Structure formats: C-alpha cells, structure tokens
C-alpha cells in the first residue's frame, strides 16, 4: 500500500492532465483546474521546505565551526534580514525588502554576471584553437556569427550579417531542432513511465 498509493496518485494526476489538455470546458478540465490550484499551494510549501533546509544546512556549518562558517553566517544574516523585512513590511515598491533588492541584490547579481565577459574572453582566446577540421569549422562559424551579429560586421563586409543569419537559421537550427525533438521525446517517455508506474525512483528507491 505504501508504494501503490503514490503510484495511483501519479497515475490519476498524470492521466487527468493529459485528458484535460484535449478536453477544454469538460468536467475533466474543471477537475484539473482544481488540481492546478492545489499544485500552486504545494509549490508554496516546497519553497518553504527549501528555505528551512538551506537555513538548517548553514546553521549547522556555523554551529560546528566549519572552515566556511563565515560565508554561512553571511548567508544566514542576509536570509533573516531579507526574509524578515518581507514578512514584516511586505514586498511592494518602497518597502525595505524592495530597497534591499533593487539597491543591493540586483546590482550584485548583474555584476557577477558581467564579470563573466572577462573570463569568457580570456577562455575563448586560450582554448579556441583550430587543432582539427571540426574545431576549425566551429571556429570559423563562431567568428562569422560574432562578426555578423555586431554593427561593425557590415563595415568589414556587407554580406556578413546574412552569412551569420544563414548559420543561425539553417545548420544551427537543424541541430537545435534535433535536440528539442529528442528532449521532448525523452520527457514524454519519462512522463509515461511515471504515469504507468514503471518509473518509481521518485518514491526514493532505485
């Protein structure tokens, strides 16, 4: 019963969603709507679970004097200040939470992401070598796309933007489509395996 019940719930939920997709306005659709509302509530609780879990992990590091305890302490302080200000004053415009987010967190995250430009440039210069035919093809394609995607490209050669577009919309897209179809087929087969109870790893067993 311990394993049958979750499998049954998975089967009913999955089958319900598939049927609802094709039967808009039917009873199945109405039932699936109710299930979707429950799903958002469960989603809220899973966020809470995540928050509690991260707080526990880092509190443990501080309590056991782990070598990274300062980072954990910093995380816990930020966690309490951000979470506390949101719970006490709300998260709307002009609140402490919003100010902390707009003035500190958002610029810090943008900065971290921007720093990547330096590393990418350095890595591209050091690693991008035409050591074989395939890497030479990749190198030429990358240079053409990079040049074709910037305004300066058309000054070098007016046909560069259209060459870059061709690379993006024909060979690159053919590969992308293949990956998309492959991933979709994989997701569909995995979903079917879960719905039919063949795949049970989500129950916590191999």
């Amino acid at each position, binding site marked *: 019963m311990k394993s049958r019940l979750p499998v049954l719930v998975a089967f009913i939920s999955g089958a319900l969603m598939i049927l609802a997709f094709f039967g808009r306005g039917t009873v199945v659709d109405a039932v699936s709507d109710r299930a979707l509302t429950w799903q958002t509530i469960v989603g809220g609780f899973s966020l809470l679970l995540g928050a509690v879990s991260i707080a526990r992990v880092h509190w443990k590091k501080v309590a056991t004097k782990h070598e990274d305890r300062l980072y954990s302490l910093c995380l816990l302080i930020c966690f309490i200040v951000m979470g506390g200000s949101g719970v006490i004053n709300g998260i709307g415009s002009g609140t402490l939470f919003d100010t902390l987010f707009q003035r500190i967190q958002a610029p810090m995250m943008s900065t971290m992401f921007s720093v990547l430009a330096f590393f990418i*440039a*350095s890595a591209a210069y050091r690693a991008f070598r035409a050591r074989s035919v395939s890497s030479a093809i990749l190198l030429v394609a990358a240079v053409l796309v990079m040049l074709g995607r910037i305004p300066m490209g058309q000054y070098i050669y007016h046909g560069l933007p259209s060459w870059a577009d061709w690379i993006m919309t024909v060979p690159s897209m053919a590969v992308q489509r293949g990956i998309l179809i492959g991933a979709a087929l994989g997701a569909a087969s995995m979903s079917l395996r879960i719905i039919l109870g063949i795949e049970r790893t989500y129950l916590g067993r191999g």
Partner: protein
Amino acid sequence: MHGTAAMDVSGKSFWERLQSVDRRILYTLIFASVIIPILWPLHLPTPVTPESRAFFNAVDSLPSGSVVLFPFDFWPSTLPETEPMAVAGLRHCFRKNLRVVGLSNVGMGGPSIADRLLDSIGSEFHKTYGVDYVNLGYKANYSAVLLGMGSKIADIYPADHRGTRLDSIPLMRQVPNYDSVKFVLIVSDNAMTDYWVALVNARYGLPMVAGVTAIMAPKMLSYIQSHQLLGLLGGMKGAAEYEQLIDHSDKASRGMDAQSLIHFLIIAFIILGNFGFFMLRREQSQKGQN
C-alpha cells in the same frame, strides 16, 4: 622572428607568447572597450533582423485597448540584456494604448523588477495602475500557473503583487482568463519561453513573441519557423533593434557600441592565438624535418 623565434627570459618563443598574452592585458583592453563607447558613443547603426521586425509588427498590429500578458521571467543577473527589451516592450505597448498585465515566474526579483519597470514606464505615459496596467507578481509552480490562468486567473492569483484583491482591480475584472488576453509578450532569460509556447500557445492558441538573452536565441528561432512565436528579440542586439523600431534609443543602443568593440577584440585575440599556434606548429615540424 624567422626560423627559430626569439626566446624571452621565461624560455618561451615569440609564437608561444602570442598564445599566452597575460590575462591582465586582456582584461584591461575589455574594460577599455566597455568604458570608451559609454563615454564617447560611436553611434554604430544596427541592421534590423526579420525576427525583430516581426516582433515589432506583431505588437504594432494590436488594436488599441487590447490586453497584453507581459511575463517578466528573468533574473536580476541578466538585467543588462533583458531590461532594455522589457522597457522597449512596455513603451511600445503604452504608446499603442494597450493594457498590460505583468507577472513573473521567477521568484527572486521578478515581481520587484516588474513593479519598478511598470511604474516608471507607466508614469512616462501617464498610465494608471489597476486601469491601464497591473502587476500580478509571482506564484510558485509555473506549469500550474500557466495552465491554471487559462480557466480563472483569480484562482491562481487571488490578489496582485501589492495585495489588492483581483476583483477590486478594474482591469482584472475584465480579464478573467486567457480568453480576454489578445497577446503575450515574454521577456525571459530561462526555459520559461519554452513553457509558454508548449503550455499556453499549444493549448490556448495565444499569439506570442519573446525577448530572450543572446545565448537562448538560436534555440528560440525554431519556434519562429514553426510560427509558435511571431517574433523574437535576441540579446542586447535584439533590444537595440527594437529601440530603433520604436524610435526611442536607450540603454541597448548605447550598449551595442561596447558589445561591438568587445566582440571585435575577442575575435582579434582568437585570430592572434591561432596565428601563434600555427606558426609554432610549422616551426616545430620544420625542426623535426631537420
């Protein structure tokens, strides 16, 4: 520099040194490439791609008063790329007197960014919150949110981001579900665009366009070919093109100068490194023959 290239104190030949320029020099040049165009803009023209033009045309053809769903599905880390798209999109919508329903499937920061941009661009066009635009905020579990709004938005979002009940908001009283929505304008830096296409376009047939980061654009082009997306803005370049189309140059247009120089610099260094690599290989093979 012919034959055996000159050696430096570290014992490296000239061709080897060409392949290992100190990263501090590279970083300084990149820093200069970003700063110089900001201080002295180059005003390089950006040619408009068909995808960006299709994006513009799709929004431009909407009748005045139409309701546009505007997901702000991006993290603060990609703001330099995504914010210009969202700003230009909002400007275009408000200029056309379209009514905007903002929301976010990114919990960390999405709703706050949406609030800030909706309020600042809304005030630029003298729009009123609750009448011309609204911010629904964030709800966990995107698949349930995207599908659930098709039946009843108030079931998923009982209140907006500011805590006002949806039935007290004049705009939302007229928008019970997707049937009242004319169009979806997605700005995203993650897989949410795929879910909007797969769950909302496929099931409810809502027309949509997307502004995504440059790294995501090649994948999204396949949705353009299948007509599941009507238009696409790819990265800062896409945003700059859109700014050009709505005739309002802003951050993206300025950023394109810097991006141009950086791309150029990276390409120059890649060519330099490869030149050194080939010359060294040639030198080594000549040595081997001797």
